């Protein structure tokens, strides 16, 4: 298989403009003859559905929640980047491009990233026009902040609810097209298979989550905007329903899965409090602007704290280890996410962690409050402090917050070319569900940007180019390809229901999550990964013998929903492990202990691994086949990241 990235010719800054000029157009009168399926109504899916419908295509939009407005994008807090340079602090499209490439540890495509930076400016215009109430300065102009260690202020935000406001904007545009009759909505409907006719994606099979009805939908193209798969770890900051199913089923129909091992672990989450925990809550990264990260200097002190014999406030200055400030004097508490996360793990592994579990470090606002006063700190972080207090019952104004890293975002996903098309004709992947723009590590506030860039400004052009070459004829859902796909979906469901074992789906999910976290999480070793692979295979075999799924298909059945998702996670998990094992280097979110510099920093191997690893499904229980897309850097020089 030849992986063609389809990057347009010409200088970097002109590629997208040229490409837009060169794409084939569909005559306005003919657009209504094409149907497009969009799976997902998050930022990526809602924006794509709205824009495609505005152009005149007939769109069917699907989500598993009860309303499109509830997609996981709603939970994003911090903000969205755009190279507007409103602050006149030296930002530019090129700088955003450069920061994203560098932040991604040189594992993403230059042309894609440049386009992302280029259209970022239009996103903000679009959102403001929709009535998104971004934060503003007293003069009435838009406010910005610097985010995630960026040297410029390019992040637009709406208090701590940026994702919510952007999604509601996209949802409103989508709703308008529903009213116009151009979008048909399918909430509480889950895609369970991709349907291929003559080698092209021509539809999907879905299950109505309330009635259990299995249905087919036919179209001329299918867009997956189904989000990330961080829930393979069970505990993550993702919403409970986030899953890999849509992408994974497409993978099994031939779409390549790229860089699945690249996972972003966010350093500032509320630590796990017990076995019952169902998800982890992210605390905005902005807290690191004023909070100081520390652990007790010695194991003995940490133990006393864990046993509640002493209180952290009682520790003197020289009993505290502000390890980030000591180790990285230039960046201090603001080192990138992966560095901050890994170092928290190290100090906890040394036995210096706090909280009863020993898996937490302090984020202390004492000095900031002494310096700026409680009111100022409350003004900046009040809602976060309240949330922390609500969840933990502890008061961060009076005692240090406790934080621990948690799985947050998956940079891997379906392989797509410059047009956001997978290797399967007619199948597109956007937003977090594709692998494209963030390389091995995503910068803060760039996922929202990517989702909306893909949906509002990229896909409407590139999908038009594809459809212009397609015939108008629709394929009926009585076509045998649909019947076959429906049959296999039903068989899979029947199988899950017939096992009638003894262990609940959640138990399997928790066990899988633990294996993934222990061996394929913040730091990885060949030995650990090999062990994990065996464990996941065993767990999967056991799942198909012993899982307990009650009830029937013909009803609202939450265990069945979860079982079908966990079955896919059990396969996806193994591929993540294979990918992590094969990548003999450390880069971004992928840290292999065997590959570090003498100072303990990630050591890339550009010679051998400057490529996208795209995996091909070859059959049940068969090893997947690796394809490589070599990354070519013509505009940036590869350097080792250093935050010392």
């Amino acid at each position, binding site marked *: 298989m030849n992986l063609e990235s389809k990057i347009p010719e010409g200088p970097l800054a002109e590629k997208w403009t040229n490409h837009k000029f060169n794409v084939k157009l569909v005559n306005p009168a003919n657009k209504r003859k094409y149907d497009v399926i969009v799976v997902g109504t998050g930022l990526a899916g809602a924006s794509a559905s709205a824009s495609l419908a505005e152009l005149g295509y007939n769109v069917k939009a699907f989500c598993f929640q009860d309303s499109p407005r509830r997609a*996981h994008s709603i939970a994003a807090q911090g903000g969205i980047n755009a190279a507007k340079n409103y602050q006149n602090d030296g930002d530019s499209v090129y700088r955003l491009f450069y920061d994203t490439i560098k932040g991604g540890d040189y594992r993403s495509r230059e042309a894609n990233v440049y386009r992302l930076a280029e259209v970022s400016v239009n996103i903000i*215009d679009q959102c403001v026009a*929709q*009535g998104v*109430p971004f934060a503003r300065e007293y003069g*009435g102009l838009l406010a910005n902040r610097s985010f995630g260690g960026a040297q410029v202020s390019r992040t637009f935000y709406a208090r701590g*609810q940026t*994702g919510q406001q952007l999604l509601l904007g996209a949802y409103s545009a989508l709703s308008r097209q529903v009213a116009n009759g151009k979008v048909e909505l399918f909430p509480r409907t889950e895609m369970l298979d991709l349907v291929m006719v003559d080698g092209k994606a021509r539809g999907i099979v879905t299950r109505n989550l309330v009635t259990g009805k299995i249905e087919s939908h036919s179209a001329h193209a299918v867009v997956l905007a189904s989000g990330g798969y961080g829930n393979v770890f069970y505990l993550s900051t993702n*919403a409970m329903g986030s899953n890999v199913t849509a992408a994974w089923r497409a993978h099994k129909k031939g779409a390549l899965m790229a860089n699945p091992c690249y996972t972003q672990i966010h350093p500032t989450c509320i630590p796990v409090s017990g076995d019952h925990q169902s998800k982890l809550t992210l605390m905005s990264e902005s807290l690191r602007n004023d909070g100081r990260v520390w652990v007790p200097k010695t194991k003995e002190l940490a133990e006393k704290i864990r046993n509640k014999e002493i209180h952290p406030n009682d520790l003197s200055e020289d009993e505290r280890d502000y390890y980030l400030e000591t180790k990285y004097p230039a960046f201090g508490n603001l080192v990138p996410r992966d560095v901050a996360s890994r170092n928290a793990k190290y100090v906890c592994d040394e036995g210096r962690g706090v909280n009863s579990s020993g898996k937490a470090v302090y984020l202390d606002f004492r000095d900031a409050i002494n310096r700026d006063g409680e009111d100022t700190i409350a003004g900046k972080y009040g809602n976060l402090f309240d949330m922390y207090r609500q969840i933990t*019952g502890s008061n961060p104004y009076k005692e240090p917050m406790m934080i621990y890293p948690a799985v947050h975002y998956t940079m891997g996903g379906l392989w797509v070319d410059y047009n956001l098309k997978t290797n399967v004709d007619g199948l597109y992947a956007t937003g977090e569900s594709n692998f494209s723009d963030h390389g091995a590590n995503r910068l803060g506030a760039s996922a929202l940007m990517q989702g909306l860039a893909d949906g509002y400004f990229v896909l409407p052009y590139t999908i038009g180019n594809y459809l212009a070459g397609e015939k108008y004829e629709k394929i009926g859902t009585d076509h045998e390809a649909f019947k076959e796909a429906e049959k296999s979906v039903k068989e899979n469901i029947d199988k899950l229901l017939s096992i009638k074992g003894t262990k609940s789906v959640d138990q399997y999910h928790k066990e899988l999550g633990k294996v993934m976290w222990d061996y394929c999480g913040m730091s990885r070793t060949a030995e650990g990964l090999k062990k994990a692979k065996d464990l996941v295979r065993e767990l999967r075999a056991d799942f198909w013998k012993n899982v307990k799924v009650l009830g029937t298909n013909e009803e609202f059945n939450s265990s069945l929903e979860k079982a079908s998702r966990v079955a896919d996670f059990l396969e996806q998990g193994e591929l993540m492990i294979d990918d992590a094992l094969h990548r003999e280097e450390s880069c971004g979110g992928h840290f292999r202990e065997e590959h570090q510099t003498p100072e303990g920093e990630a050591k890339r191997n550009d010679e051998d691994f400057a490529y996208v690893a795209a995996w091909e499904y070859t059959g049940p229980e068969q090893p997947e086949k690796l394809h490589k897309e070599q990354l070519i850097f013509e505009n940036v020089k590869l350097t080792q990241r250093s935050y010392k």
Partner: protein
Amino acid sequence: MKFNLKIWRQKNNQDKGAFKTYELDGVSSDMSFLEMIDVLNEQLIDKDEDPVHFDHDCREGICGMCSMYINGEPHGPLRGVTTCQLHMRSFQDGETITIEPWRASAFPVVKDLAVDRSAFDRVIQAGGYVSVNTGGTPDANEIPIPKSVADEAFDSATCIGCGACVAACKNASAMLFVSAKISQLSMLPQGKVEGAERAQKMVAQMDEEGFGACTNTGACSAECPKGIDLSNIARMNREYLGAKIGSQD
């Protein structure tokens, strides 16, 4: 901690439904309310009983999906939080907790505690947007918006569409939800243009969905997890009346 849980069980929309009581032991005060139900569900599954169905997703108070009526109050006893953010430390050990779905004819029960809130989506489809196509928009800083206005619009925009306002209202009125969206958009210059028409269309759809009338008791705002203010309703009435007058000629 130990609890007596009186939970509404209803197999589907056709089923009549009834309360069923469960005893649950070993609950930690750090658990969220939904995690407590997770524990109950694991025990039910173990006994081959159908787990309690409920809507939830983000579990951090922002998606608006969770919707439980707990001890006679939407989202339970605590102000300003959703069910997923409510923790068991807010309850007394040994307490009996009554859990029901939202009750409103515009929100039919789907199963157990899950209801159908698609009426809200249809109200938004009726006009809860600015009519702007993708692309071709002016530069974002072209129209300055005073910070106070932007902040106030944000306060209205923060509604999560959970429906607690409807559940709290004895008339099952959706005024708070609808007025929050109308207010947000009519305060901003981008949305003002269509303000009057929007108000008319959204109110008409709200009526068509079978939500009740507003009798100004304020229960909605008191129970709203996002603190959406009653002033939104006044603002909506102004928009709506303005529209009525405007439409007479």
